[in-house]
């Protein structure tokens, strides 16, 4: 079991769950197009990028530099929630089925370049580059499906099946083809992966090495390369509840 749903929603309420990087999977060209059609802000170190008082419907993409997202307590003290690098999306994404971290501020740690998109601009972008719209729809339906699958899988499946399903899900979201197979291009610790499928790190490590031995995957520099997605899908779909 992982932390209960109740615990999850409480942490969520206080802005303590990770944001999903929504534009992952868009091509460099699409990203460049987004960059050109929107407002670019060059920030100096320490400059504020986001406050809770900002218009609630903007999306900010970090093009360069690092950004610190933090909360401010009633007595004025700051608590850093996360440090984001190039490629991360900040801001309200209720438009995209995800709400913004409550009460979050953001400022630049280094000199940074931030690309800001208004809802109007996003609509225009989708008209010009339908791929972006398709990707958004895929992302939203994917979120819905994976939420349903996760509920089902936590309730009924074995660890190897849960892991197989999660890996295939990650391939869909972060997969990039390489010579040796499909690389899951996401920074994930074993602990994080274990939590995603509701098991311990040890069990995860054991299952991963079992998959490795069976030639289903390889690990290269702490990242997973899927070598045999077909057999992995077989494990994911096996009808072996229990």
């Amino acid at each position, binding site marked *: *079991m*992982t*932390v*209960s749903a109740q*615990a*999850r929603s*409480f*942490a969520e*309420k*206080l802005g*303590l*769950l*990770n944001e999903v990087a929504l534009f992952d999977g868009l091509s460099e060209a699409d990203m460049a197009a987004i960059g050109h059609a929107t407002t670019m802000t060059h920030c100096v170190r320490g400059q504020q990028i986001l406050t809770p008082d900002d218009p609630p419907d903007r999306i900010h993409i970090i093009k360069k530099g690092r950004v*610190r*997202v*933090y*909360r401010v*307590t*009633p007595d004025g*003290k*700051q*608590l*850093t*929630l*996360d*440090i984001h690098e190039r490629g991360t999306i900040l801001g309200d994404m209720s438009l995209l089925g995800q709400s913004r971290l409550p009460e979050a501020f953001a400022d630049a*740690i280094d000199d940074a370049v931030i690309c800001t998109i208004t809802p109007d601009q996003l609509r225009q972008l989708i008209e010009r580059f339908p791929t972006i719209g398709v990707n958004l729809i895929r992302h939203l339906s994917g979120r819905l499906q994976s939420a349903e699958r996760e509920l089902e899988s936590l309730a009924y499946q074995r660890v190897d099946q849960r892991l197989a399903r999660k890996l295939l899900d990650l391939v869909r979201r972060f997969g990039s083809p390489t010579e040796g197979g499909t690389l899951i291009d996401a920074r994930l610790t074993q*602990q994080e992966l274990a*939590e995603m499928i509701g*098991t*311990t*790190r*040890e*069990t995860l490590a054991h299952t991963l090495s079992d998959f490795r031995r069976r030639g289903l995957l390889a690990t290269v520099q702490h990242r997973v390369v899927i070598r045999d997605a077909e057999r992995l899908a077989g494990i994911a779909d096996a009808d072996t509840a229990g």
Partner: protein
Amino acid sequence: MTATLTVTETIAPAPAIPVLPASHVPAISAAQMAEVDRSAIEDYGVTLLQMMEQAGAHLAEVVRVEIGGDLRDKRVVVAVGPGNNGGGGLVAARHLANRGASVRVVLARPALRMSEAARHQLATLIAMGTDCCVATYDLGDAALEHVLATADLVVDTVLGYRIRDAPRGEEERLIGFVVGAGRPIVSLDLPSGMDPDSGEASGAAITAGATLTLALPKSGLLTPAGVARSGRLYLGDLGLPSALYTGIGIRTNHPFAAGRVVIMDRTA
């Protein structure tokens, strides 16, 4: 005639924490402890949050004893790593604050880089208004030094038994500041940076005045190096089923028969 009612109540001095010879209890390796954790969760349905609550509540009690018996107005800094050892530290921070201590929580990593269970504990502390900050990003070096130097006691929950390599990055940095402050330290499970099996340290490591280890003592705490590094050794009950230990071939010998927290006498 007047009747005088005299009530005489004799209150015995509070019983001290029971002492148990270390030879009475089996020590376990990090691999065995990982199996205990796995079995607790997967075979017995004990949740991580349940275990974390036990660990943190005992830790607050050990801090009370080590700080002189009363937590009121004592300044306690809790140094917190990103994993579940840190989560236990966050639970202890809640109990310490509830019991009158002035608590400051210093995280090694940004809040969203912590384990899910630790984030859950952090959310409660934030809702309580407990002072929480991230060492590298929310405090300058001078402020961090000051916070640690003015503490009556520092609680070390930076790294747990799953870490075998020398600490790196933010954890190494926070350990360095805690060591540099030279204040009394109580560690959770084992001093951060100490190898759980050998008691040796291959890099930055805490030397604690006292250590609360959980469930069963880790082998490294019983080696000469581990004894020197861990200080007074307490053992705290996580409330795990006895059958769990039997199932993986460990005879526990009921270490908590005399109390849920005991002091281990390693000379015996």
